[in-house]
């Protein structure tokens, strides 16, 4: 990845591109990959899904395009200054900060606009927003497990053991997990858990201690930091990664973004996605096998499942079989539904059985 001074140079280079286009008498423009489902492709080499060859052009040829590029120029200046000063800011702060710019046309109309622009700049410069020192609003999730690490903070480096030095809540993942250095670990595998309730259940039952698991809380659609850290566990500590979510189409997408990368950040898939991550459950098969309490699929669930069948990321034999089975039985179940067999069922029976099947333990 890039260093901070590289990041600044990349931004200045982009501004210089605009400058050169002006000077040559041509219309400034910025070309980006088209960010739609139909334009993501499987990258054989890295095993993740990235943007394909189709591109769209932001050109100053239209009023809309010109406004976008003007905002880009202002944002480039802001980011370059921020890097010079070694400060950081959140995406939301960028949105509000634009109000202070002396140009009405350059101000953002909504936060979506500023978020999108930062993503555009990431794609064009090849620099992640973390390296621009831009943070998301939501904090990263939490880790619990036998791992010792060193984090660079504003108040100096801290050495933390993620079981011994933390409370019941676990270790809070910082916005830029690349500031973390792994020191030592006894972990056997990484277990990413969708819901807070299930994470708490596993911690309360001592699952991390018993199985030397690094329990990572995803908290719904996982933040970049969480995905990045998960990838580093896999790449640097060589740990198997499994993902444990509810048994419904929305949760499969959470798995998908961990394993394959998300459509919006497909440009960062190589940096964020963990293609080796495997899905542990709840599988549609489990609903049948364990006779779990379930809810019927709603219309939007069915639509989501059908759209997943067309999503290139889910076009594997495993997923096609599972999704078709689910459409067939018309049911979905939450992680917590395992509690119908007792509070310890998940830690004593379900997870060990599934991990055993998958050859993780």
């Amino acid at each position, binding site marked *: 990845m890039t260093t901070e001074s590289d990041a600044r140079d990349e*931004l*200045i280079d982009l*501004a*210089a591109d*605009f*400058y050169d*286009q*002006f*000077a*040559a*008498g*041509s*219309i*400034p423009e910025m070309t980006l990959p088209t960010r739609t489902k139909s334009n993501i492709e499987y990258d054989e080499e890295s095993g993740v899904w990235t943007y394909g060859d189709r591109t769209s052009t932001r050109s*100053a*040829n*239209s*009023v809309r395009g*010109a*406004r976008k*590029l*003007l905002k880009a*120029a*202002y944002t*480039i*200046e802001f980011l*370059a200054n921020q890097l010079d000063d070694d400060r950081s800011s959140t995406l939301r702060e960028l949105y509000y900060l634009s109000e202070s710019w002396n*140009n009405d*046309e*350059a101000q953002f109309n909504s936060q979506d606009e500023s978020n999108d622009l930062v993503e555009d700049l990431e794609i064009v410069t090849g620099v992640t927003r973390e390296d621009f020192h831009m943070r998301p609003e939501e904090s990263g999730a939490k880790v619990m497990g036998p791992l010792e690490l060193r984090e660079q903070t504003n108040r100096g480096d801290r050495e933390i053991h993620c079981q011994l030095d933390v409370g019941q809540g676990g270790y809070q993942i910082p916005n830029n997990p690349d500031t973390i250095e792994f020191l030592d670990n006894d972990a056997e595998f990484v277990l990413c858990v969708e819901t807070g309730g299930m994470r708490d259940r596993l911690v309360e039952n001592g699952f991390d201690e018993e199985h030397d698991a690094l329990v990572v809380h995803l908290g719904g659609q996982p933040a970049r930091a969480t995905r990045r850290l998960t990838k580093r566990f896999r790449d640097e500590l060589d740990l198997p990664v499994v993902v444990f979510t509810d048994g419904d189409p929305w949760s499969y997408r959470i798995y998908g973004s961990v394993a394959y990368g998300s459509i919006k950040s497909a440009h960062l898939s190589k940096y964020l996605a963990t293609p080796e991550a495997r899905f542990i459950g709840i599988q549609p098969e489990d609903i049948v096998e364990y006779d779990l309490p379930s809810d019927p699929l709603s219309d939007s669930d069915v639509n989501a499942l059908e759209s997943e069948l067309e999503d290139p990321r889910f076009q594997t034999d495993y997923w096609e079989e599972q999704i078709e089975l689910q459409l067939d039985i018309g049911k979905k179940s939450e992680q917590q539904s395992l509690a119908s067999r007792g509070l310890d069922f998940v830690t004593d029976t379900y997870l060990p059985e599934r991990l055993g099947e998958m050859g993780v333990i």
Partner: protein
Amino acid sequence: MTSFQSTIGDEEGIAEELAEGQREISIAEFFEKNKHMLGFDSGARGLVTAVKEAVDNALDATEEAGILPDIYVEITEVGDYYRLVIEDNGPGITKEQLPKVFGKLLYGSRFHAREQSRGQQGIGISAAVLYSQLTSGQPAKITSRPKGQSRAQYFELIIDTDTNEPEISADEETTWDRPHGTRIELEMEANMRARQQLHDYVKHTAVVNPHARLELREPGLDEPLKFERATDELPAETEEIRPHPHGVELGTLIKMLEATESYSVSGFLQEEFTRVGKKTADGVIDNFRDVYYGRELSWSPPRAHDDGDVASAVSEAVANKGAEATTAFAEGVAETVENDDRVTRSELAAIVDDVAETVEGDTGKTFGGTVRENAVDAGWRAITGRGDADDEEADSGDGPDESPLVPDVYALVDEATSTRKDDAAVQSMAEALARRFENLDGDAFRVTRDDLERLVADAASFVAEQRDATFGETARENVVEAFWSRARTVPDDPPKVKSIAGDRDAAADLLEAMRTTDILAPPTDCLAPITAELVEAGLRKEYDADFYAAATRDAEVHGGDPFIVEAGIAYGGEIPAEGSVELLRFANRVPLVYQRGACATTDVIKQIGWRNYGLDQPGGSGMPNGPAVISIHVASTNVPFTSESKDALANVPEIEDEIELAVREAARELKSYLNKRRSMQQRREKQDVLGRILPEMADKVSEVTGRPRPDIDGALARIMNNVSVEREVNGETVSLVVENHSDVNEQLDITDIVSAEPTDLSDGTVVDMDGEWFVQWKPEIPSGDERELTYAVDGDPEFEVSVGGVETEKLTVND
């Protein structure tokens, strides 16, 4: 019960009593009581109507004499009354005619003429005179100087309302400074509350009469309102035309039949109507015969040696002519008949005459009228079994004998109906029809198409009842057509004009025949449209707008009167944008100022979807809003008004259609203008926004990169699809670089004004204008191309470049 009738009957002499109170009403007296019908319903309106009638007359008179109209209107207050003076430079009116023109209602030259003119009934100006005398008691004072006379004639007159005759109170010669013309002075009780309508009338008259000069003085005006001429071209002279056969009504036709000097229908048609020559008249007469007499059904003759052999029948009918002549005659007739597939009785008679004459020539025997008639009867009996052989008919009784017509009828019915009809149904239809044909009056099977349709329908319902086989509408129509197309128009001469005139039904038949015959549209030289250019010129003269369009339609006909519709639209500029558009209505070049809501033109405008044409129209119907003036002119030899006061056009569908087409034609131009204007406006807005954003972006990128501000004009010109003209001065060499970034070739007109003398021009021309030099180029630059125009100049001169040939929105000049 006591009836009312009997009560009256008891009172003797009541009818006589009533009769005493009944007397003739003079036309002048009638209008005295019904002033509103002529537009004199109030003092305010009376004044406007009087001006209108006098000005219309003046315009008609001058145009007829080929004089460019110069009309002066003055209104002054005289005590409690208003005095109205109207002067024109027309040809003047002779001493003899003058009192009648002004002093007699319904006296005029145009009522009977099919020709476009403003006045038609000869009521208008005399009604104004009448109104003036009724309200002020003053006579009308009229001066007229016919062209070429040294002195003018002065009259004072009133109308005797009992007799509708002028009553002259002064008649003397006088002097007048106009070389020719007419002046009328009326005093009337009036007010100026309708000042706006008066001004509208005069202004709109100026719009549709760009060849006229008008001046209006009235007490409320500090300065006289003057409308100058926009053209010296008089409207085309109009020709009077006769009525068109498609446009007369039954009553008119009967009157014309009574009045004509023609003896035959053919002569009548050719004499009294336009577009009717010999051929058209024959066509009308054939159609007339078909409706008046009906056609004769035709039948196929029996083949030789069939049972009813024509030859033997004819030879039997001939007596005392000798065997040779008889045989020659009989065989001649039979052969000729057999040559025809089908024959009617009239045709048979013609054949008999023809053959008789030949045989007479060959043999010297005489075949007189009786012999020929007998031969026709016998031959016809042989063909159709029809004739006055009473005994045979008695023999046949009501036996199963079928009519000899049946096979013939069957063949036609079978051919005319679909193959799916079962044979028995066709057979019984044929029998039923044949029976009905047998019952026709006379031997010749004459039937009109209407009757034929009735017979077929009758037979079909009979068959439906008896056989349960339906002959639907289409099948019946096909059967009727099969017989009608094989029936022949009879050779009888049409009745003479006099007898048609006395026979209402015959006249109705003639009218139907006239309407069903194809006849050329009436000629249009009886009309004087303003023409699209002058409609536009008129609008241009009186409305300061951004855009004008006009359309003139081709002539059409309604009720035998040709008419032409013209429409014009002015948009933008000084026309007020608030409220609904202004609608100018004109009929034969006369502005219509009252009763807008009752006018067909208003109805048409309201039902056009103006949003399609770029005008605002609340609710999608009704009067559109916006800065526009729509003018509509209907010119016709007979403009259909809703009332005698001639304020509003009646809703005649043919005229409404043409109005709509004319307005839409002009509106389409408006639409493309507005679209272009809108896209230019968008372009301007884009230019404004980009012209602000891009320099800021350039500043920002130069700040970030730490480089000097880049030159962005090239990028700007390219974005705007623009033509950019940029000056570069390099020592003594001046060059103008012209780049065409638009997607079309541009033909430019570039002038550079230099304060020192330029030399070494790359091309182009230079003109010295008092120490300033105009360097001119007219380069054509293809899309995407550029051109460098150079010259050399000494010192440090001043430049000023101007560029033409391209819209300013598309131009970026960097001087």
